[in-house]
């Protein structure tokens, strides 16, 4: 197939393309999707920033 002697190597060649396509399709479908488990991230972010600020001031 494709001029490649060993089916295992031909499979690797095709899988390179297929897996890159998988990444592409995945990204397009999930473009605007966040993680399913939602949590009040802004709060955590603010807490982390506060921690950093306190740490740096110390």
């Amino acid at each position, binding site marked *: 197939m494709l001029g490649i002697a060993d089916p295992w190597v031909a499979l690797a060649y095709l899988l390179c393309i297929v897996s890159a396509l998988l990444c592409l399709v*995945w990204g397009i479908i999930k473009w605007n999707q966040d993680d399913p488990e939602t949590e009040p991230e802004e709060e955590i972010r603010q807490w982390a920033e506060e921690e950093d600020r306190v740490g740096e001031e110390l």
Partner: protein
Amino acid sequence: MSIWMIIVVVAYLCIIGYLGFRGYKTTKSATDYMLGGRQVHPYVMAMSYGATFISTSAIVGFGGAAGVFGMGLLWLTVMNILIGIFIAFWVFGGRTRKMGLRLDAHTFPELLGRRFQSKFIQGAAAVIIFMFIPLYASAVLTGAVKYISSQLSMDYNTALFIFSVIIALYVIMGGIKGVMYTDALQGTIMLFGMLALLILTYTKLGGVTAAHQSLTDMAHLVPAKLQAGGHQGWTSMPKFGAPLWWVLVSTIIMGVGIGVLAQPQLAVRYMTVKSGKELNRAIPIGGVFIMMMTGVAFIVGALANVHFQQTVGKVAIVAAKGDVEAIIPMYLQSAMPEWFSILFMLTLISAAMSTLSSQFHVMGTSLGRDLVEESMGRKQKGGGVLATRAGVLLGILISVYLSYIMELKFGKTGTAIVARGTAIFFGLCACAFLPMYVGALWSRGITKAAAIAGLLSGSLSSLFWIMFVQEKASTALLVCSKLFGTRSLAIQLVDGKEVFAKTGPMVWAFVDPLIIGLPIAIVATVLVSLFTKKTAAAHLDFCMGKKK
């Protein structure tokens, strides 16, 4: 060196300088310096991850290896895309980012240390990184500087000095922002360079199938020594269980393919983006990028055999006089148009700079943040940014010194040790960090003592394997031959001939440290977890977002 080459290189350096300066101007806190303020754009994140992952040696070294082993190396590309990008971003990325935020971790060792409530883990991980990454960095640095000095007709030491100073400036000043902005530009250049290389190669050899067919038809030309090792042609896998099969599958495909998951300089990137959305958006960019990097390098490396056979009547490794690393540069010189050499030089400089800048950055954060600030408890103003900058500088000096002294003082032996740097660091990181990292993200049962047991057993067993058993590394490092008079404990001399120790299909001297160290670390982590004090439920709830 043409005037065009000078103009292009100067313009490139000016843009890099500008991006580094932009990073510097927008860096105000430790979070900015270490994590880009957790607000990095997904394109920048994906390109930076990919460009850091792919060094000059991935293109020139591994591309050359494809010239020897053939297209079987494409399995590594499959691993790189599926594990290194898809699984890494989707499975590891999301959890790492969230846990990193909850624990307010700024570095990979800090994430592990805070998750297991252990300053020892943070410190030990930092020590491993700081001790071994200079070897990896000097491998990348030496390769890049050799290439640049030959292309720009410069002295090796002058090129080493100029190249290191430029990277030092933007890493020390611009922090991770400087690193990631420049990475994104460098990644984009690499993408165009490799795309052009693929198209030109296939066009030259008469199309995709015709090119592969010509390579398949050359199977009878495989040199006798490679045939004896199990080589069956450049479009076939080596014979199962033969020495070349072990090198290809265990060291190249598994070692690098799995090792990428626990690379501190890569894992830290998940923590630089704002939400899971950015990670999802980074997957297509990263996937296509990696396919265009390693995929193209391996296809072109293998097809170089057809070109050399048609032009000089020799297979690639014979045409390159046995020097694997010379295959790709020689192919470019003899098969590609002149304009391409400028584009490809930028591609390789970019590949090296993007990997090096992240290596230097992670060395700095390991020393400044993890060791001095957190593990030793020496709090400073600015959250360890000053100590980190000093750490970056120290890391650069050590790496440059290694690149300078190894070849000068130890000649070929020095070069061989440095050349093993990438593989040693990848294997060591996977064995030391992977079980603990997976446990940190998913398991409530892995205890602090178990994490430490995994870290120590994984790193020590893989170091033992590297120094005393795996013949490529142990031969280069010389410790085994100095102590035991043989280049590997798995090789015995019988009547002056080397005999390789075997158990079933396992030819031990060719087995990668990962195959040994990783299972040992996993077993140690699980066993010790069964008998030691569990982590407090409240801490686990906090780390994992109250999910039981």
